[in-house]
């Protein structure tokens, strides 16, 4: 059986078991299946997938989970220690017991997709698939074919949401690997302000496949901070896309922090459709062993007077492979644009690999666009400078590596998350970076 057929077979079985649903949903599902069937899984011959081989996913055997059982004690150790409103999903299924929806302020809707569909399917049908349609990639088509759960976040105009809204995705270690195809819809009303965190984590031994698609709409003057903290188990496959549409004067900030997963692919796209819209992309990825982390970003300056700034940093050890592909696109007649992009990578081992491709595609002349990318190792002179101050070489390496990551982490507005990632990076660094003592002290301070 071909790789595609296995997935289509699972899909067929699921469709038969599923109850009635809105006609538009059935039609989109069918379009997704047809598109996926036509395209098949991407190969390295596709320019978009030149450096990422997804055969491990294509040849995998993934079932669909049918319950959301998860030990609350275990969940508590994984959950971000933040005062927040929270939706939790276990292998793609909504876990009511692990969620916290109490005291949602007026003007804020935070609901699992299934419930939002049941309440008012027409309101969901509008945005679902409008930004990330079945055309986007074989995985978006697959998501559309399978989608049943996810999250719907709506923020009414003028509402300022104090607490972060967390979407927690837990992955379980079970004999049978499973897959999940969540869809996240975020609609930020005009002049609203909110923080959304997508958090992926799970049991250490898990080997599941998550294929998530997020669609984000910012209306005029909306401000949204969007975190993605990807701490998936090291055996998990993680394919994700975030597609943002920004109206006039809106401000979107993405923090894309990737630590886990065996094979990770993130697509982040922002359409700046109204004057004065701005977007900020901050990214950090850390890979070790044989991890493969692929980040594709795209900023589309579709309107004049728009601004974008991007800073991605990668640290790769062992035989990890990193990919960075950032594109800044300026549409014809989109004058007075500023677009900046920076990507820096640190290779810690001889076998680590990075493939970077920063692109500029510009069709207007009154623009200021630049990109810079560097790849290298720790600065020998900086190590020497620290050593002359009595710090041993291994610690010096560790500190400098953290400082490198710190240039992105210092932009992270939520300190709890910045510290968590910093500690995680320090904890993951091998012995030759000798940060164990520091990590212990820091952890003790937290407790």
């Amino acid at each position, binding site marked *: 059986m071909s790789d595609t057929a296995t997935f289509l077979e699972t899909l067929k079985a699921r469709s038969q078991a599923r109850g009635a649903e809105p006609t538009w949903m059935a039609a989109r599902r069918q379009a997704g299946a047809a598109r996926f069937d036509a395209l098949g899984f991407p190969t390295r011959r596709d*320019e978009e997938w030149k*450096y990422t081989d997804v055969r491990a996913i294509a040849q995998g055997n993934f079932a669909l989970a049918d319950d959301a059982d998860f030990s609350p004690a275990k969940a508590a150790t994984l959950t971000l220690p933040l005062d927040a409103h929270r939706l939790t999903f276990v292998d793609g299924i909504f876990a009511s017991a692990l969620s916290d929806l109490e005291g949602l302020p007026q003007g804020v809707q935070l609901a699992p997709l299934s419930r939002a569909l049941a309440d008012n399917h027409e309101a969901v049908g509008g945005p679902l698939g409008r930004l990330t349609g079945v055309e986007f990639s074989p995985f978006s088509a697959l998501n559309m074919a399978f989608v049943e759960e996810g999250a719907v976040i709506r923020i009414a105009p003028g509402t300022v949401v104090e607490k972060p809204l967390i979407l927690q995705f837990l992955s379980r270690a079970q004999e049978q690997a499973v897959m999940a195809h969540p869809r996240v819809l975020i609609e930020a009303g005009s002049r609203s302000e909110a923080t959304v965190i997508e958090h992926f984590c799970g049991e250490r031994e898990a080997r599941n496949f998550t294929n998530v698609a997020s669609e984000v709409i910012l209306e005029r003057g909306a401000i949204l901070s969007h975190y993605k903290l990807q701490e998936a188990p090291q055996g998990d496959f993680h394919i994700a896309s975030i597609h943002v549409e920004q109206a006039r004067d809106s401000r979107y900030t993405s923090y894309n922090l990737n630590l886990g997963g065996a094979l990770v692919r993130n697509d982040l796209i922002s359409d700046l459709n109204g004057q004065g819209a701005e977007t900020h992309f901050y990214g950090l990825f850390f890979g070790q062993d044989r991890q493969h982390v692929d980040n594709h970003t795209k900023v589309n300056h579709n309107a004049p007077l728009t601004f974008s700034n991007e800073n991605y940093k990668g640290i790769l050890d062992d035989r990890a492979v990193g990919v960075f592909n950032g594109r800044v696109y300026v549409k*014809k*007649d989109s*004058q007075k644009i500023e677009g900046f992009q920076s990507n820096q*990578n640190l*290779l*810690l*081992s*001889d*076998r*680590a*690999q*990075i*493939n*970077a*491709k*920063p*692109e*500029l*595609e*510009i*069709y*207007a*002349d*009154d*623009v*200021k*666009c*630049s*990109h*810079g*990318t*560097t*790849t*290298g*190792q720790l600065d020998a002179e900086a190590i020497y400078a620290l050593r002359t101050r009595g710090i041993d070489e291994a610690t010096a390496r560790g500190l400098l590596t953290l400082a490198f990551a710190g240039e992105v982490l210092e932009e992270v507005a939520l300190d709890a998350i910045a510290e968590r990632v910093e500690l995680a990076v320090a904890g993951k660094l091998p012995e030759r970076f000798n940060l164990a003592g520091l990590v212990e002290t820091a952890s003790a301070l937290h407790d």
Partner: protein
Amino acid sequence: MATEEMEQLVRREYKEGFVTDIESDTLPPGLNEDTIAFISKKKGEPEWMLEWRLDAYRQWLKMEEPSWAHLDYPPIDYQAISYYSAPKRPEDGPQSLDEVDPKLLETYEKLGIPLHERAALAGVAVDAVFDSVSVTTTFKENLAEAGVIFCSISEAVRDYPELIKQYLGTVVPVADNYFAALNSAVFTDGSFVFVPKGVKCPMELSTYFRINAANTGQFERTLIVCESGAEVSYLEGCTAPMRDENQLHAAVVELVALDDAYIKYSTVQNWYPGDEDGKGGIYNFVTKRGDCRGDRSRISWTQVETGSAITWKYPSCVLRGKDSIGEFYSVAVTNGRQQADTGTKMIHIGEGTRSYIVAKGISAGRSDQSYRGMVKIGPRAKGARNFTQCDSLLIGDQCGAHTFPYQEIGNSTATIEHEATTSKIGDDQLFYCQSRGISEEDAVSMIVNGFCKDVFQELPMEFAVEAEALLSVTLEGAVG
């Protein structure tokens, strides 16, 4: 079937099927094995060369024309092209400068081309051009004395078969890409340079080449080999606009540098870019690659690309030898409806290899330009170093400038830096110049030349001067 029998059969096929009149000077349009046999025979080539061409042709048949470049042009009908026409006889060309298009002469004037060269460039019969034959002879004697071989590729196939067998197709294999395979099958012109061990070529081959530039062909094949410690500087093309009826150009250039050798290859390309709507311009699909085979060898590409309707060109360096160096300096200017997709590839294989890329792109009018480059660091390229700078300048709001740099880095000791900017000529810069009495056009030309300075200073001196003038001519009418 045994290989031998197979080969015989293959050989027999074109002998029997051979119908074209060998005496005729021009082939009718079309491409098949007979065409290739005809070209090979016309050039008096040995059997192995024909086999080589046919091998390339057969592989070409199985290949697909690449479509990844950021270019938009109607499909090319490869059967509508004539693949051989004998060089023009002197009596076909204009007999004196008075017969030459005055517009062309005006451009020569602007470019500051020396009087005695204008006639040669305009295609005036060689006999009518003063002195050039004797100049050529002197050059040839000097080169022979130094032991440098410099001749047409066809002569080289006949006279130095061993060298050709040893090097041809070793840098750009016959089936390297679609256009290289086509070139390998049908190439008719081009040069061969061989600089023996320890010899520094006594003159810039540019000087010689310039006089002979009038007969550059459609499918050029150039091979330059520098043995250990040898050095050569070679310039192809010319700042003067070249009249050419062939629309499709697919050249292949191969450079081989052994230990401590240094090859400097400069190109000035100013072919017909087409009319205002881009009709009739040259399609230029070029494969250029240098192989730094020896330790401490160095290959440097410098290009000034102002002509052609379509440019598809990526001069590259394979840095195999320890501590070898690859360099790429490029200025590409597009105006009107021109499209250029150009850049370089630096493949670091050896330890301590270094590469340096400076690419400056200027887009004006309704043109579209892309820098496409790759820096690849292999696992054994310890301590490899790359610096890339690519800047784009946009003139007018109808043009496009794009950057697609690929970096594949598989070594933690490598240091890679890449910078790119896109901007326009600032109103404040123009105002500053104009307030000092400099006209707008001169100011633009001055700013653009400053923008390109890093590249121009790599050109041989007399060409650098002309290149500056060329830029102004190309951008005429782009501003104001």
